[in-house]
Every structure is written in C-alpha cells, then in structure tokens.
C-alpha cells in the first residue's frame, strides 16, 4: 500500500472506536446481549480499519515532521514551536494493530461468555487496554508516548483488580505505585529532551540532538536512563519483572492475553524510540542488551520454580520479553526483524497457552500442577492445544517460535556475540522443560481423585474452542510461511538502522 502524506482520517479511529466502545459498554453495564453486540461490532470495526487504512501520518499541529520520501519539514527559525504531535501508521503498525484487534475480539467474546456480573465495565477496560497499546505503537512524539504509557498502566491495574482476589489487589497496588515512579521518570526524560533539542516530535528531536556537545552529554544520559526505566516498567523487564509477573499471574488468563499484547507492543515501540534517539550514545546498546539477558535468564529460572501453570506462563511471558528486546537491542536490521517477529509470534503462542490455561481452569477448577491432573482424558483437544503452544514457545519447528528464534540466533552470531545465541538456546530449552513439567502433571498424570462426580468441571465457553483453533492456525501459518509476517517488519527495521528520523 502506498504511503500518503495527507492527514489520514483513519488513524484516529484506532483511538476513537475503543473510547466510544468503552463509554457505551460502561453505560450498558450488565445488559449482556447489548454488551456482546457492541463489543463484537467495535472489535470487528477495528480489524476492518486496520486492514483498510492506508499508510501515512495523522498530525495534530499543522504539518507532519517528516515526509515519506525522508524529507524533513521543520523550520529552524521556529525552534520549539513546531510541535508536530503525530501518529504514523505503517506496515509494522498494521500487523501489530491487526493482531491486537483480533485478540481483543477473542478476549471480549470469551469474557462475555465467562463472566457473570459487571461485564460492561470490565470489557470497557479491555478496549482501553487495546487503545493504550495502539497509541504507543503509532506515536511519533514524546507527549503521546508518555500519555500512552501512563494510561496503559492505570488500565492494567483496573483489569487486574477485576478478579476481586487479594493477590490481584496487592499486585495492582504495587504496579500502580511503580507506574507513578516510572511515569514521573518518563515525564522528566521528555522535559530533558525538550530542553536539549527544543522538540517534542521524535523525528525533529533526532535531527536536533546535540550528540557532539560534551557539555550536554550528562543530560542525554539522564534522559536515556529515565526512558530505559519506563521501557523496563512498561515491558516488565528485569529487575522489576516480579511486578509484571504478579500482574499476569493474578489477572484472568484471557485478560492476560491482552495485557501481554500491550506489554509487547510497548516494548517494541519504546525500544525502537530508544534505539532511534539514543542508539549512537556509547554503552546504550550494551545497557539494553544487559537488561534483555537478565530478563530472559531470571524469567525462565522463576518459571521453572512455579507450581501453578498460570504463574509458569506469567514468568515465561516475562522471559520471552527478553527475547524481543534482545533483537531490538542488537540494533542491526536482522536483529530488529528478529525482535519484532519474536514479539508477533510471542503474542500468538502465549495466547494459545493462556487460553489452554483458561480451559484447564474450567476442567480442573484450578491451575495448580499439584492438585489438577488427568485432564487429557476429559479434554484431549485441550492437551493438543497446550502441547502445540508449548512446542511453539520452545522454538520447535514447524511452529512460529522456531522461525523468530532462529533469526535471533543468526543475528547474535552475525553481531559477533555467540554468547547471546547460547542464551537464546538456553531460554528455549528451559521453556520446554518448564512447560512440559506443567503439561505432564496436569494432562498426563493419572487423576488423583477418580471418584465419579468428585471432579466435575465447569462448562467451557464454546468461544474458547474457536479462538484456540484460530490462534493455532496462525501459529502454524507463521511457522510455515514466516515471510507473511516478516514482509510487514522489514521496512521498520531498515528505517531504524539507516534513516532513524523517519518513523
């Protein structure tokens, strides 16, 4: 699709539709049929807009910062006055928003089928989760980036609180307190960049960045530090990974699908901004790589120690965030493609595993690998889904995880750091062990209490089967035909490396 320089009307729809849906769903509150129709129509509208929207800009202050040709519109005589608050919609944004809106549709349909009360308020929070992710992935200015991250963290707290459990309330409290710190940090970073460059637009700021001015180096490092802090927070990277793992583990599994999608999109978006803006600073990539490696290692080790399948997945999501950031942090075209593709695949196969986890909850009235057993006999299809998800997450061919992990390994080797390739392999193997420990105990271990009627499960929403089938199809499709996704990611990777001022 050709890029347009006109002020695209379709881009704000990714924000307007979820907000309108959220308002309407709140008003509808507990009228289930009306909520189902509104939520389904709104999600479908988002899918349609993501497919049909042309590529280009939507700007709020008169003119775009950068032309599609790479040309540049800012005027030096109007320093600080060309705000150019803008969104950009390109191939990366298209695949990310398309995938997020498909997952939103699945999640709201499952939520409507499984929840008994206050459905409208809860579903409205799911729509706002999507909205915050859409803002952050499209944004090309610090102002909206900061607002997207702030709104996103408040909504995450709301989604987690919906379970009503004590563990969720504590997770939400900790997460919100840290969001206050991280949000303040991002605001300070914004202020520093604005002070140093005079621009809120990322493209403008990159051009005006005084990288050779030694007197401003400390300011740039402080701005870099605060931006990395918000990256770590938004993506749940080490050393604050327990906060995010708590959030994933204490939310409903179907909600975790959307939460982890939001996290991955924020990781990608903020990671690319850091690379574009600070990539040439000495040690910037090294800091990012260190955070990635720490996240991967700590995440998988913690996943191995869990005795609840839900928490195993929570820590694996954190660990696999490190795979995404590893690719981005390498800063090469191959590395960035690997990181972006890993984000896409991760969202899909983790969704398969989380839906399988929700299925386990219905069949076994819990997800503990100590108390739930023998599910394969009652739900063989669920066992197959969980095994496919586990194979994909472990990087076993022909599933999608294999394709992105092999790119990451090649990128690490080409970058001259074979030790990173070894870490990726180690994460794959450990993921396999952690997942199959849970799968064996829950599905294949003989039932501990086989008396009739003692372990009657709850009715499983039919929508769960449909969503699992669709996600497994995508898992295999991207595993067999990786170019279907990679074609959307090439352009973003090339721009970041060669023309970073172009979003």
């Amino acid at each position, binding site marked *: 699709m050709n890029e347009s320089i006109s002020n695209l009307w379709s881009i704000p729809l990714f924000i307007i539709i979820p907000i309108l849906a959220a308002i309407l769903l709140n008003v509808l509150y507990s009228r289930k049929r009306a909520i189902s129709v509104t939520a389904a129509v709104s999600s479908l509208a988002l899918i349609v807009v993501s497919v049909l929207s042309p590529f280009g800009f939507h700007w709020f202050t008169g003119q775009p910062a950068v032309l599609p040709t790479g040309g540049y519109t800012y005027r030096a005589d109007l320093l600080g*006055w060309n705000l150019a608050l803008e969104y950009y919609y390109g191939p990366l944004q298209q695949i990310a928003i398309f995938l997020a809106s498909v997952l939103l549709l699945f999640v709201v349909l499952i939520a409507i089928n499984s929840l008994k009360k206050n459905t409208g308020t809860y579903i409205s929070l799911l729509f706002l989760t999507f909205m915050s992710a859409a803002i952050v992935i499209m944004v090309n200015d610090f102002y909206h980036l900061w607002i997207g991250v*702030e709104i996103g963290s*408040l909504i995450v*707290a709301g989604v987690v609180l919906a379970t009503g459990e004590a563990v969720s309330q504590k997770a939400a409290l*900790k997460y919100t307190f840290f969001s206050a*710190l991280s949000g*303040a940090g991002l605001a300070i970073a914004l*202020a520093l960049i*604005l002070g140093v460059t005079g621009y809120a637009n990322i493209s403008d700021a990159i051009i005006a960045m005084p990288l050779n001015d030694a007197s401003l180096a400390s300011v740039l490092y402080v701005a870099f530090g605060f931006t990395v802090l918000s990256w770590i927070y938004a993506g749940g990277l080490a050393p604050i990974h327990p906060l995010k793992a708590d959030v994933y583990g204490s939310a409903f599994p179907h909600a975790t699908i959307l939460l982890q999608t939001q996290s991955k999109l924020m990781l990608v978006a903020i990671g690319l901004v850091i690379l574009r803006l600070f990539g040439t600073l000495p040690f910037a990539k090294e800091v990012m790589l260190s955070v990635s490696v720490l996240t991967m290692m700590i995440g998988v080790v913690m996943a191995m120690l869990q005795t609840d399948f839900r928490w195993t997945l929570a820590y694996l999501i954190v660990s696999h965030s490190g795979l995404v950031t590893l690719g981005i942090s390498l800063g090469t075209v191959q590395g960035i493609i690997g990181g972006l593709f890993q984000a896409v695949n991760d969202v899909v196969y983790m969704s398969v595993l989380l839906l399988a986890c929700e299925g386990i909850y219905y069949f076994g009235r819990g997800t503990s690998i100590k108390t739930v057993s023998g599910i394969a006999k009652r739900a063989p299809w669920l066992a197959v889904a969980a095994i496919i998800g586990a194979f994909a997450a472990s990087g076993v061919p022909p599933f999608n995880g294999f394709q992105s992990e092999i790119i990451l390994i090649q990128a690490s080797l080409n970058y001259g750091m074979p030790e990173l390739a070894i870490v990726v392999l180690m994460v794959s193997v450990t993921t396999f062990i952690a997942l199959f420990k849970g799968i064996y105990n829950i599905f294949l271990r003989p039932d501990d209490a086989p008396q009739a009627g003692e372990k009657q499960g709850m009715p499983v929403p039919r929508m769960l089967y449909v969503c699992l089938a669709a996600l497994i199809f995508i898992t295999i499709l991207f595993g067999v035909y990786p170019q279907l996704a990679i074609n959307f990611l090439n352009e973003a990777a090339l721009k970041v490396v060669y023309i970073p001022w172009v979003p």
Partner: protein
Amino acid sequence: MIELNLQFLSFMAAAVLVVIGLGGMLFLDNLIKKIIAFTLLSDGVNLALVTLGYVEGGIVSILEPGTSGAAFPTNAVLIFGPGIVLTNIVIGVSTTAVLVAVTMVLYQRYGTLKASKVLKGERK
C-alpha cells in the same frame, strides 16, 4: 560559577520535591503517606516542566498584533512545558484515585494501612 537566578532556584525546589517524594514512596510504610509522597513527586516534576520553559525577560506566548514575528520564538516562554503539566495533573489525579481506591479495598480486607503487613497478607 552557578548563577542563582529564578530558573536555577526553581529547578532546585523541584529537585527537593522529587527527592522527598521518592524517599517517601520508597521508605514510608503507611500507604496513605506513600500516596502523599507520590503527589509531592508529581508536583516536583510539574515544577521542573514549568521551569524548563522560563525565558529571562520573556514575553507571554500569545502572538498579538504588532509582535515581531522574528523575535517572538526567541522571546516567548516555551509553551509546551505548561501543556505537559496540565496533562500530568490529570494523570496524577487519576493515579491518586486508583491508589486510594485500592488502598481502601485492602484496608477493608486487612484492617491496616501498613504496606509491610498488607503485602504479606497479615491482618492487623
């Protein structure tokens, strides 16, 4: 030598607020006090953002008839800082509301406001 002008003093005041707020959030045990510390932190950030736009002897950033187009960008105070502050106030209020709501729910459950007890799941 550092010049003690209004902008420098204002930045110092902002830094003091940020440090007090950060210290309170990290080291105080009472959840309400932590929330108050967060508001101090937020105020410090707001002050830093407003100070950023300060221009010595500057003019209000409204382009009035007769104002020189060439001189305006260099003399007018930077308007973007106060713009961000406005948003930060709204976000700060929302965050405070969420924190107070969760604190109330946890107080009803555990009967204490001590973060150390609440997070361990201990009752008063």
